[in-house]
């Protein structure tokens, strides 16, 4: 085992909630994403964070409600996973929904119950397994703007260029579903802020960076910025919820720790998506957009030609277009749908 320490820690902390007979750690990796001066880059973290220092962060579902899960043997500290400044996520690691992620939200967790942001899913309707052989899950530490990019508070370090106004500060852009929310560190207010904020607006320090979503980062500083991330490779397919309103867009993290291609992602496949809309006409097809560094490269699956094609590009086959590790993809679906499978995209498992 490459990382026996992690396996040992897992055994120690998991206690009687671990049911597997063989303890196995997940591969660990790191990735450095560089944003050159004056440029904009997309990025996402293709790893799960390291195990939490909180106890009992792996277990099996013993009950679920519409927006909560329970683990009867857990001994969680009430509220420990529900603070705005230190968010956590739940990752299902076995069962039919392995790879699905939910943010832990309020009401505050109890000793055995976690309330989840389910993106509107009713967890009682999706067939999760509960009981002694219930679906396994893991609690993973998450990040906020402040925990990931820092601040000027004592004891913190600010890794981005802040400013008193947004036009000269580095920008962290989060896709809201309808537009980009642009955050920057305001060095006068000493807090994270939206570019449209006034002093009266609340601090944005605790804006959660969803682990299943991507970001755009605009570097206004005069030097490049290297963002190094480390974590554990996902051993199961990433199952991501995305918007299925008409022409709705979602900026997703495929959690690929190595370079992949459009052909390998194969989002048009029925094992990856439901009713992926291909066409010989880009205007009628679902779109995968990848930030190139200065503009979007937009692709659609040409059902006549049977391959991926760039919008507006006469070059025929873009199946081999490389999507670099950690690069998020902007998914645009043409038609609306609401059921759970309709709203799920499955990305290839990156490790095992």
């Amino acid at each position: 085992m490459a990382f026996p320490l992690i396996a040992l820690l897992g055994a120690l902390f998991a206690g009687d909630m671990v049911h597997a007979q063989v303890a196995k750690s997940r591969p660990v990796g790191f990735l450095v994403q560089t944003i050159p001066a004056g440029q904009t880059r997309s990025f996402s973290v293709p790893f799960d964070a390291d195990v939490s220092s909180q106890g009992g962060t792996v277990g099996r579902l013993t009950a679920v409600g519409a927006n909560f899960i329970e683990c009867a043997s857990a001994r969680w500290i009430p509220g420990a996973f529900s603070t705005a400044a230190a968010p956590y996520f739940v990752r299902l690691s076995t069962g039919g929904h392995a790879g699905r992620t939910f943010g832990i939200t309020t009401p505050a967790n109890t000793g055995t119950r976690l309330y989840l942001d389910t993106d509107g899913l009713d967890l009682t309707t999706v067939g999760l397994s509960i009981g002694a052989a219930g679906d396994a899950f893991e609690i993973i530490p998450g990040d906020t703007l402040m925990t990931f990019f820092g601040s000027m508070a004592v004891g913190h370090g600010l890794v981005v260029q802040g400013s008193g106004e947004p036009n000269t500060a580095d920008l962290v852009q989060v896709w809201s579903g309808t537009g980009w929310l642009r955050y920057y560190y305001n060095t006068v207010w000493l807090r994270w802020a939206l570019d449209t904020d006034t002093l009266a607006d609340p601090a944005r320090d605790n804006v959660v960076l969803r682990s299943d979503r991507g970001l755009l980062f605009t570097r206004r500083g005069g030097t490049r910025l290297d963002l190094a991330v480390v974590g554990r490779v996902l051993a199961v397919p990433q199952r991501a919820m995305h918007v299925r309103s008409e022409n709705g867009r979602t900026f997703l993290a495929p959690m690929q720790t190595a370079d992949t291609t459009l052909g390998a992602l194969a989002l048009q496949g029925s094992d990856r998506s439901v009713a992926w809309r291909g066409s010989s006409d880009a205007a009628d097809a679902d779109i995968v957009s990848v930030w190139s560094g200065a503009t979007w490269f937009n692709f659609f699956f040409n059902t006549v030609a049977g391959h991926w094609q760039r919008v507006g590009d006469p070059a025929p086959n873009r199946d081999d277009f490389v999507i670099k590790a950690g690069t998020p993809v902007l998914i645009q679906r043409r038609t609306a749908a609401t059921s759970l499978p309709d709203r799920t995209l499955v990305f290839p498992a990156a490790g095992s």
Partner: protein
Amino acid sequence: MTLASAIISGFAQSPVWESFNQPGAQGSVLPLSSWVGNVLRQPETITITGTAKDDNGWGAIGLNFDASGLSYVTILGQRDAGNQAASLVLQFEDSTLMVHTVAVSTSQFPIGTLGAVQFALGAWPAGFNATRVSGWSIGGGTTGLVALRMTLDQIALSAVAAPSLPIIVVEPADRLAGVGTGTTLSVSATGGQSLLYRWKFNGSPLAGATSAVLALSDVKLTDTGAYAVDITNAYGTTLSRSAQLAVVNLRASQTLASAGYLAGTPLGVGATITHSGYSGSVVLQVLLPMGWNYVPDAAANPVPSVVAPGVVEWRWSTLPASPVTVNYSVNSPSAAKDPQTLSGLVQLTQAGIAGAIALKPDPLLVPLLPRSHSADINGDFRISLLELTRVIELYSTRKGSDRTGAYRVDASGEDGFNPDGERTKGSVNSALMRFHSGDSNRDGGLDLFELLRVIELYNVRTGSIRTGAYRFVSGTEDGFEPGAQ
């Protein structure tokens, strides 16, 4: 075709990548970009206007161009009013859609007039097929954050750095100076090794002003005006912006309230600003010697603030009538020695132009005053019979029938002390705020040996004449020795 574009296209090593001509341009407005409907096309230029943002909005795909060996990009363009985009980003893609992205600050482009900006293309990324560049785009390189307002005339690629007109990297800045002081104006430019500079004042050449820095000394009110510099190389002349110099009738000085300082005692200082016709704001800052402290004075107007250790600051949004004087006190450390200096700066801002004037003299010398003996009531560094008598009076202090020599600090005493008749014989008061110079063992009383020491100083003679002269010195039991200063 403009002069500058003729220079670019005339250079054999600089094939024109994009002319922006209509017709004849290689690229076009990119669909879905914010530039759609917001590009004003002229015969040889495009102007990005309307609601266009700083996403990449112009480019082409489907090309097959061998760019291997090319190392420099030269863009002929200008910044237009309202531009907020920080960068101009040029992206190339190869046939596999690998990309190479380079950025240049928009601040390098002149405002309102075309100028050539050249920058390195940088190394093509590993795996990038530079022999088959299939597409490119230009813009601010973002998702459309702020307004991009530029006019673009030409993009050229070259294997070597192409010559061009001098390019001003840092324009001369506006200055504000006080009458009789000096200031400098400077420019930074690229465009070859042998750049020639010629500064002009209100459009007329200044004799001898032929370097990148124009140093002006002893400026007069009549020196107020516009300063610009022509920068010339083999390919022509670039004119800088006009920097405004405002000479204001304002002077500042500083003085000591005494001849110097005594270690550990307050020192009075005054700063005076005289002015006429000045309407801007003023910040006065003084820098104290290391370890010295400002003595807070709540009655001061304005009340200064200590903005950093040893830095005291007064602020006026509008100066009161001239002259404006601030008097303040500073404390020196008890261990201070050697002469010290005080420096001060008056920061001025008028009509958006900032400047600074040093307080004169700069720096102000603060001598260390020789310390006089407590017995020397008139401070003439001589012990007179009357002054000796006062010491004997203190020596003779009694408690009942016991001589104690005890004294206390008392400002009403002619020497700052008075007999302390309450203390008993043999008692010690080593907690006095200060001690009589004669009290060399610092026990709060004068004994016979200490009195004899004062008498020794009193008896100092020059020839046959008793002078009582003494001087401050280190290393003796009381810090003094016989002899004149």
